[in-house]
Each structure stands twice: as structure tokens, then as C-alpha cells.
């Protein structure tokens, strides 16, 4: 089976007059189809950059990326990707439902693939039925993120890229959305690449965690999380979870010292 995401020797440099930055250096990793991988690392280590490379928003300076067996560009054109941004990026003049429908109005798509969930069904999936006609400013931060997730799920993308989607939320809301995200992942069978700088979130959500170190951004460690597939938040209190989290923190600590 070909990997859902396959990055080989990816480097990204941002050139500028004042100072050029090597955001990523020789990053290689694979995500299996249907896998859930967290990208964990300190601020500025290139997590968003890496996600943007996979989404064909940035072309890497070096290295190759394949997404779902083709180039990122082909995958993007085929609408195989869903992207959830850090600040939800909802259009304020559209209601929740109209925001979820946006992908059907641009990029030459007018209809959903056979069997794909409708915008209303997706709002229900993220727990927002009854809020279809609310404008973004009438929704809480957590609800806005859910709308953004529903929008990213429209058309049944096989790969979901999420850039710190819950970073701006309080812990209680974040916990609940973490649980919901795992449920959605298991229901849809999509591959998820999830950026976070919270060790707990990374370990709780994923079946594999890629830890990045900063300056330049590079792989610090890759860890397979041996926790049961059916888990709820209480797993965070088990000794296994605590041990994995401690190990991840150690990887990150090393990365910072180098």
C-alpha cells in the first residue's frame, strides 16, 4: 500500500533581504493510509510550513513529497485534501451552512461525489445541527472551529491537514473537540496530519507522533503510540500515557539543546 503522505529529504528556505530562514531541513517521514499523525514541536520549528508543503501551498526548496500516490498539486486539484486553519478562516459574511458549502462554489466543483455527506450532515457530525443559519460572529471559538472542520470534511477528503485547530481554545473545549476529532477520524477513515505544540494533545490523538526540533526545523523523533484504538480522555491518567508523554517531552528537550 502506498503511503498517504511520503516526504523525502524536504527542505524549505525562506529568502529575504534581512535574514534568510531555513524553516525545514532534510525532513523525511511517512503517514500510512488511514493513519493519524501528530506533528509536535516548539513554536517556529516549521510545523505549519511542513503542512503547507503537503497542501501544495509552498514548494519545497529540496526534496520530494508525494500525497496519496501523486504530487501535492494533483491531490489538491482532485480535492483529496481538507485543510483546517488555526483561526478557522470562516468567511464572516456567510452563515455556518454557507461556509461549509463554499467548496461546492469554487474550483469547478458544483456537486458532491456519490455517497458523500451533505453540508447539513457534516454540521450534524460536528455537533452543530440547529446552528446552520448563524453567522461566525454569533458562534463561540469552539463552534467556529467545528464549522471549519465540517467545511474541510466536505467531499470526503482522504487526507485532512489540521494546523493547530484547537490552539486558541480553552482546555475544556479543547478536550471535548479532541474526543470528537478521534470519533470523526474513526467514522470517516480519513488520514489525518495534525499540528500541535501540546504534548498531551499530540499523544492522545495520534497513533504516531513526529517530534520536530527548531532552528532549523528537523525531525527530532518519531514515536508510534501503543495506546488502544478505542480510547477516551481518561487514558491520559494511565501510567502508559504518562510514560509516553514524558518520553516525547524528553525528545523535544533534546531538540532544543542542540
Amino acid at each position, binding site marked *: 500500500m502506498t503511503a498517504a503522505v511520503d516526504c523525502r529529504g524536504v527542505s524549505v528556505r525562506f529568502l529575504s533581504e534581512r535574514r534568510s530562514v531555513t524553516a525545514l531541513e532534510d525532513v523525511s517521514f511517512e503517514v500510512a493510509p488511514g493513519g493519524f499523525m501528530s506533528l509536535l514541536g516548539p513554536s517556529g520549528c516549521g510545523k505549519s510550513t511542513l503542512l*503547507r508543503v503537503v*497542501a*501544495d*501551498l509552498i514548494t519545497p526548496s529540496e526534496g520530494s513529497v508525494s500525497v496519496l500516490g501523486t504530487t501535492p498539486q494533483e491531490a*489538491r*486539484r482532485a*480535492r483529496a*485534501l481538507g*485543510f483546517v*486553519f*488555526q*483561526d478557522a*478562516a470562516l*468567511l*464572516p*459574511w456567510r452563515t455556518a451552512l454557507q461556509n461549509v458549502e*463554499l*467548496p461546492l*462554489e*469554487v*474550483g*469547478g466543483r458544483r456537486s458532491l461525489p456519490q455517497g458523500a455527506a451533505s453540508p447539513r450532515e457534516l454540521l450534524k457530525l460536528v455537533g452543530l445541527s440547529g446552528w446552520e443559519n448563524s*453567522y*461566525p*460572529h454569533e458562534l463561540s471559538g469552539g463552534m467556529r472551529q467545528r464549522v471549519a472542520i465540517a467545511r474541510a470534511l466536505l467531499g470526503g477528503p482522504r487526507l485532512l491537514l489540521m494546523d493547530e485547530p484547537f490552539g486558541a481554545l480553552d482546555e475544556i473545549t479543547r478536550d471535548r473537540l479532541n474526543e470528537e476529532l478521534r470519533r470523526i477520524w474513526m467514522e470517516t477513515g480519513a488520514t489525518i496530519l495534525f499540528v500541535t505544540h501540546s504534548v498531551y494533545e499530540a499523544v492522545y490523538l495520534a497513533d504516531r507522533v513526529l517530534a520536530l526540533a527548531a532552528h532549523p526545523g528537523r525531525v527530532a523523533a518519531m514515536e508510534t503510540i501503543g495506546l488502544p484504538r478505542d480510547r477516551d480522555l481518561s487514558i491520559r491518567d494511565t501510567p502508559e500515557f504518562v510514560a509516553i508523554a514524558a518520553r516525547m517531552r524528553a525528545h523535544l528537550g533534546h531538540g532544543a539543546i542542540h
Partner: protein
Amino acid sequence: MTDLATHADIAAAPRASADRLRAEEEAFLASQRRDRLRRRILPAIGVASFILLWAALVTVFKVPPYVAPSPQAVVATLVARFDVLMANLLPTAIEAISGFLLGNLAAIVIATVFVHRKSLEQAFFPVVVLINTIPVVAKAPILVLLMGNGMEPKIAIAALICFFPTLVNMVRGLESVNPQALELMRVLSASNSEIFFKLRLMNALPYLFSALKIAASTAVIGAIVAEWIGSTTGIGALIIQSTYNFDSAMLYATVIVGSTFSVLFFLAITGLERLFVRWRPANAH
């Protein structure tokens, strides 16, 4: 017995809280109504006391009518010469509205071009700024010389005066798009025209309307100032004539007609804004 009483209490509890909620709602609505009424009445009281003060000053100090009229004289003139006032408002209104439409349309089109062709913006924006630094009173004679004494120079002045604020605001509105929303459009493989109509234009609407509201009053000012230069009809011409004739009541009546039109124009734009911009802009300004 005690059991029953407790049951009744439990059943009554939610009803009591629902009653309380309803009572609170009613009180809230009543206070809203009072607020609304107060917002209407207070300005009316303000205007009325201003007019009273004006009337008192004119009577007490025996101000001669060629210096300042009494409010009664102004009202009398408004009524007696209503047809003359309206006949002169018409050309001014036509000039202001045509100038408004032309100037803003040009600004919107040029802003769109600037956003898509950065080099054009870099080349011509300084020219626009330069023209904008010339005061209206100086632009007016230049345009009258260029375009003659008809309505054209007045429309041109009104258009020019609208043009600049709308251009600046429109460019800002089209460009200040949430960068993540732009990335979203790219992830969705949206075309340039889709990005323009579904994202940039919608994002610019609140900016556009705040410029249009300014333009609604400045277009009228532009038309009036243009009429000061060798014109025989229009609010501007009437202002000049009544000043030369020391007809202060007519002067004041003319000014009132001009400002009333200006206010109505502004309110019409505000109404359109309410219709088109129903969301709260992300960066309210």
C-alpha cells in the same frame, strides 16, 4: 401531606423560573423601548432649544435681517419660495448623484485593476494622490475652463471629490483579506475571479460603504462649490445670489434645503449598507 407539598414544590420550581425569565425578558424589552424613545426625543429637544435660542438672540439683540434672519423668517421663506428652492435643488441633486455614481464607479474599477496589477498601482497611485492634494476650490475653475459652464464641470468636481476616499478604501478592502482565507481558496483550487468575487469583493463591502457614506455628503459639497463659479442655477448659485442681495432668510433657507438633501442622500446609503452588510466585519473600523 408533607410528601405532596414537596412534590408540588418540585413541579412548581421550573415553572417559577420560567416565569422569572419571562418577567426579565419583558422588563428588558420595556427598557429597550424606553431607550429607543429617548434616543429619538433627546435630539429633537436639542434642535428645538437651539432654534429657540436663535430666535431669542435675534429678537433680544435686534439683529437686522440682512445680518441674520429669525427662524420664523426662514420658515416663511422656505414656504413662500419653495418652488424656487426645489427648482434649484434639482440641478444640484442631479450633479451630485451623477458625480457620486461616476466617481465611485471609477474608483471601484481602478481599485480592482490596482489589486490585480501591482505595477499599475505603483505607477499611478502617486498621480492620484497628487491630484487629490489640489483643493476643490482650485480644481473647480480649472474644470470650468476645460468643460464650459454646463452641468459637466459640476459633475466632474463631485466625481473627483468622491473618487479618492473610495479608491483608497476599496484598495484596502480588497487587499486586507485574511491570508488564511486566501490559502483556503488555493487549497480549493479557486480561480482568480472566484477569489475576487467570493472573497475580495465581499471583504471590501464594509470598507466601500464607509467610503460611500463620506462620498454622499462630499458629492453634494462638490456640486455646490462648483456652482459658485459663474453658474445661474443650483443651490450653489442661489447661495451666492442671496448673499449678494443680503437676503439672509433666503440664504438660510437654501442652506437648509442643501443640507437636508445631503442628509437624505447619506441616509439612503446607510439603508443600502444595512441591506448589503448584514454581518459584523472581522475588523470593524
